[in-house]
């Protein structure tokens, strides 16, 4: 890394890597919220994914299985949330917060004997000569598979929400669960599946932190990435491609902050650390100053549904 001047290509490449965990978690949460469920437990699911992915990868010595394990860990935790909010109709905000605290505690319990171990390396996808293109090669062709997967996932979610019947039903459930029920859609089942998807993606994002970004296990390794993911969903006004923009913006600030620190900048890093959240607030203010449904939030967001009569 250049110390005096920051190489822009390396900066872009590293922000792409830095934003992978929040892209995955945010796109999962976007699907959950589109179905009308507000799961504030993203941080908890991420860190469960981080430890489960880490343990799986270390025990099997297979980095790919590690991501599967991470997704499974996140999904397992989200199942608790789904059971509490969809079957027992518990308050979603309180349950989500509890999920985060539970996930943080459980992950450090599981992770006790894994501190200080190196996980197996997740290799770059070999693009051959493409990777050697000056500049472009660093930005586009020197990443591991999860980076490409996360972008494809956004495209897939965007397509499904916009074009596919599954996405239409999902939006319908999040928009007006009473009407969806009256038409014969299984509101709770659809929401359960959305919550599991959200949990799996958060878990995978968490696994990326412990297997690639850091890569090792320490307590509280996600360090608020889940909260950033939640903010990005709102920042993106529930539109998939804007999640990418938001994640790169937030990821970029994280990378810039590290680089500036390394470059010995005189600006206190705290300003940069708080800037993503400040930007979110500013965006929210700008969006909500417009008239009508500018915010684009699903109408039934956070409301529990119980089929009566």
């Amino acid at each position, binding site marked *: 890394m250049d110390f005096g001047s920051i190489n822009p290509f390396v900066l872009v490449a590293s922000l792409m890597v830095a934003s992978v965990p929040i892209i995955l978690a945010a796109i999962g949460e976007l699907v959950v919220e589109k179905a009308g469920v507000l799961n504030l437990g993203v941080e908890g699911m991420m860190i469960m994914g981080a430890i489960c992915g880490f343990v799986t990868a270390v025990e099997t010595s297979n980095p790919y299985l590690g991501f599967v394990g991470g997704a499974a860990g996140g999904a397992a935790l989200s199942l608790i949330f789904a059971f509490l909010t969809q079957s027992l109709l518990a308050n979603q905000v309180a349950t989500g917060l509890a999920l985060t605290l539970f996930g943080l505690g459980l992950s450090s319990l599981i992770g006790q004997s894994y501190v200080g171990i190196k996980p197996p390396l997740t290799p770059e996808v070999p693009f051959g000569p493409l990777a050697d293109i000056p500049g472009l090669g660093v930005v586009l062709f020197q990443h591991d598979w999860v980076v490409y997967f996360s972008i494809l996932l956004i495209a897939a979610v965007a397509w499904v929400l916009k074009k596919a019947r599954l996405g239409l039903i999902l939006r319908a459930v999040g928009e007006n669960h*009473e009407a969806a029920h009256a038409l014969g859609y299984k509101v709770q089942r659809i929401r359960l599946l959305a919550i599991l998807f959200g949990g799996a993606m958060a878990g995978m994002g968490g696994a990326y932190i412990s297997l690639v970004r850091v890569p090792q296990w320490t307590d509280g390794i996600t360090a608020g990435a889940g909260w950033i993911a939640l903010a990005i969903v709102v920042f993106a006004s529930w539109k998939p491609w804007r999640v990418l923009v938001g994640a790169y913006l937030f990821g970029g600030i994280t990378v810039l902050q590290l680089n500036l620190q390394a470059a010995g900048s005189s600006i206190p890093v705290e300003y940069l650390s708080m800037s993503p959240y400040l930007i979110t607030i500013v965006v929210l203010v700008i969006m909500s100053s417009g008239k009508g*449904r500018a915010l684009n939030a699903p109408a039934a967001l956070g409301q529990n549904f119980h089929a009566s009569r």
Partner: protein
Amino acid sequence: MSAEKPVLLSVEGVTKGYPGVVANADVSFQIRQGEVHALLGENGAGKSTLVKMIYGLVKPDQGRMTWRGAAYAPPEPRVARASGVAMVFQHFSLFEALNVAENVALGMENPPPMGALAAKIRAVSDAYGLPLDPSRMVGDLSAGERQRVEIIRCLLQDPKLLIMDEPTSVLTPQEVEILFRTLRQLSAEGTAILYISHKLEEIRALCDEATILRRGRVVGTCTPRDRTAREMAEMMVGAVLTPPEKGAKTEWPQTHPALEAANLTVNSPIPFGTSLKGISFAVARGEVLGIAGVAGNGQDELLLALSGEIKSDEGMVKATGVGVGRLGPNDRRRIGFVAAPEDRLGHAAAPDMSLVENAFLTGAIRKGLTNRGFIDWAAAREFADRVIKAYDVRTPGSHVAARALSGGNLQKFVIGRELSQSPDVIVINQPTWGVDAAAAAAIRQAILDRASEGAAVVVISQDLDELLEISDNFAVLNEGRLTPPRPVQGLTMDQIGLMMGGAHGMEEVHHVS
């Protein structure tokens, strides 16, 4: 005439119970192909549960249904739809943030791709004279247009039986005419229609047969054309109904009208609301002014402006000649105003507060329920209990949260609370919305009683029959403007329709064939 047609759906001895209630007990009836069959009954008579069983949303505990002679027990709406049953819901099952085509697709089993579907929607809507643009957001449509979305969603599935739950409650007379023409066309093509309504004149005009439910049981059948609306109402209620009687007119000595609006112009505080534009009327003591109009034409705003929730210029609202436009709700209560808004849960009543607390909230000033700034709970409870008793509010007690009451019961409580405050000026939006026939009659009678005691009354309603029954003068609110009030005596339906501004651009498509 329908007797020769084969039976389409037969319901035999169907029973459905919920904890503490029997919604349907041993209900049997038949629908023939192409027949328009009315299902009549008061609120809670079990009409909705019955049609939900036919549509597969609810499973019967006992009894059986046959569809074209074969056993029929749809486990879910999908199966019912596949058999050819379609339903238009009372509260529209539409998604505001989705467009028309997406809404239609959600109600279909195997919708074609969006482009083809849009073309189909256009074709069907033209064939039945119900123009509709598939790409518009449902949130931007009028109530009449939303209903078209529901109907077209059903028609695209080529239904054999179309169930309509209270379809005309939000339509103007002209829109109702268009709807009836569509339904008659469908019936002539062989589609049976199961029509739920409490508007008896409409049922007489449209339906071939009627089954009458009371407390979950079939209490009679009739051919609506051969009965009067009064006879059918009495079969529904099981008692002889007395129409509200207007008390003897007293000439109250007065120099100024009790309530006057003079060029009342205010902006709407409600998103997508309708601002009031130059509204003028005067109501004398003992007089009832009925204000009709399709929902969303400024009814809510008018109530807010009269109750004091929206303030206007001093002289825009006057009580006995004195400008009160700047006074807030409590100051207006002090000088004799009471108001009952339409939205019962959340506006007229605080959902999670008890009936005592809700009684206190508006009654505190006029009933003197405070003592040196503290709540006089005993007096508040007594006031709430008195309202509950006088207006036959069915509740275990006044300690119950407002949310726990059924809509009709809460409505009785809210109206009763206002009318029990010996008011001089009464403003009510939708006094009998969702209330059954007997209770509606009681509420109307109570309003007339207050009027004959000398109160000036403004009733805003979408039920024309109700307004014509109790009003002395009649006006229509249209896009925030009020037509000049006219005496009800001698007013014809056609004149009313014209006052309502025709069918609001809902004219039928006259296509050249």
